[in-house]
């Protein structure tokens, strides 16, 4: 374990989380829009 390893892994998880959650929220909003 080193600072660089931990930072790299955390950065990857953070970016992955942003992309997945943002995509999920946009999908839900699109479903709500379509259902009206």
């Amino acid at each position: 374990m080193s600072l660089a390893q931990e930072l790299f892994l955390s950065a990857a998880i953070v970016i992955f989380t942003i992309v997945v959650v943002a995509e999920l929220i946009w999908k839900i909003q699109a479903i709500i829009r379509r259902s009206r």
Partner: protein
Amino acid sequence: MNLILGLVLAYNILVIGGIGIYLARRERLSGHAADLATGGRNAGLAMFSITLAITYLGSAHVYGLMEMSFVLGAVALWFCFAHTILMCVICLGTGQWVRRLGCSTIPDLVGLMYGRRLRTYVACTAAMVVFGLVTLETQALGIGIAAISGWPLGWSAVLGAILGTAYVTLGGIKQTMWVNLVNAVVMYLSIIIAGIYLGFVLPEGWEGVRSHYLVSGEDFKLSIFGTPDLMVGFALAAIFSVVFSQSVNQQGMAAAISARDESVIRRSLWIAAPINGLFGVFPVLCGLAAATIPQFADLGPKLAAATMIVELLPTWLVVLLQAGFLGALLSTFAMSALAPATIFAKDIVGAKYDGGLSPEAEGRLIRRMIILVGALAALITFFNQPNVIRGITWLFAWLAPLFFVIVAGLFWKRSARAAFLVLATSWVVNCAWSIPLFKAAIADWLPILSGLENAHISAVIAAILTVVLYAMATDDEPALFASKDIGTTATEVQP
């Protein structure tokens, strides 16, 4: 006075005082004074992104993570990842909705959807929860000051509360935003330098930390994924409590309300989420390292890592690091103390008058309430210092049900009776789950529930009840955003 503490305080006085004088001069020249709680609603992308990121970088991220990683290991980083999800929900959802509706507080929003009675109930609960957060922020300020000065934690917390109260009483949200911008740069620069520097000054370097855990059979502490029990009991609980409660919490919404428009909030995602999400790496590494060095580990989880930083790093770096930490803590303290004071002035006192209080009377009341909140927080923290992250997770469980009734009221339908039943039942169950005897009795009957924390229980019950009770509701009105286009402004769709 201790040299480091003197320099750290001098830095904060210089930054806060300098920005305060600059803003006061600008307001005098423009002849327009910004509102204490909303800052004039004109924050741009940089200012808003940094404020949103730093508002959620408080005691839990700095000293709470050091304490938690000391005990649990690198799995503590899930608290940060939970905040990344939270930033997404605020920037793409709740933050934009609150800004669109033009509400000043969360109870105000609940009142708009479900009426005055529910507004008062929510105001009382939200103010209580945020006050709890203020006491934890006070404790964190105390830990920082105690680590630098060597003073007892109780007295250090009292000094922290005095500094924090003075900071927010003088400036309000506008000044907090400017100070955040300066502190964000100082804080990030200093933690990167400190992380690299620690690798050289730790007795056996980072490799020594790693081999300590391997030899002692605690290698799970080196993994972000810990053990399955920790993933459920800590990581999942953190995600539930952080996402569902903080996305409708007054501090974050206060930042959203101050944004220039919705597009600022949406675009800030790619700045606020990484800044907030990556911050925790340094405190977690410090907690892990401190637990392996006997002279610091003996101080216990609360003070070990904070003291290690002061003892191992050179004075200039400690000053820079602590100045940034103290700045972040002061900013979170400021936003947290502002929240119950604003709720009290607008939703409890102001709601009794048609059209609310006058801006002057409201500002005066908010200032007095901030002083009262600061004094009470100092008194409580002087005598009692609970585990920061466990305390925060418990407090968040109270706000989780609000997320569901707000989302339902915005997009599905509105029923004051169903909303009241969801909130009241979730809060009663949350209280019951906080009593160890009750929790143990339920766990004996249904062992699968034994690993669940208040945050799980509160969110799951609220979600189920919202679906069932809203589906059955007969007194329902159309949702606030009942139009085909989610982007339609609330004023156009309000009945």
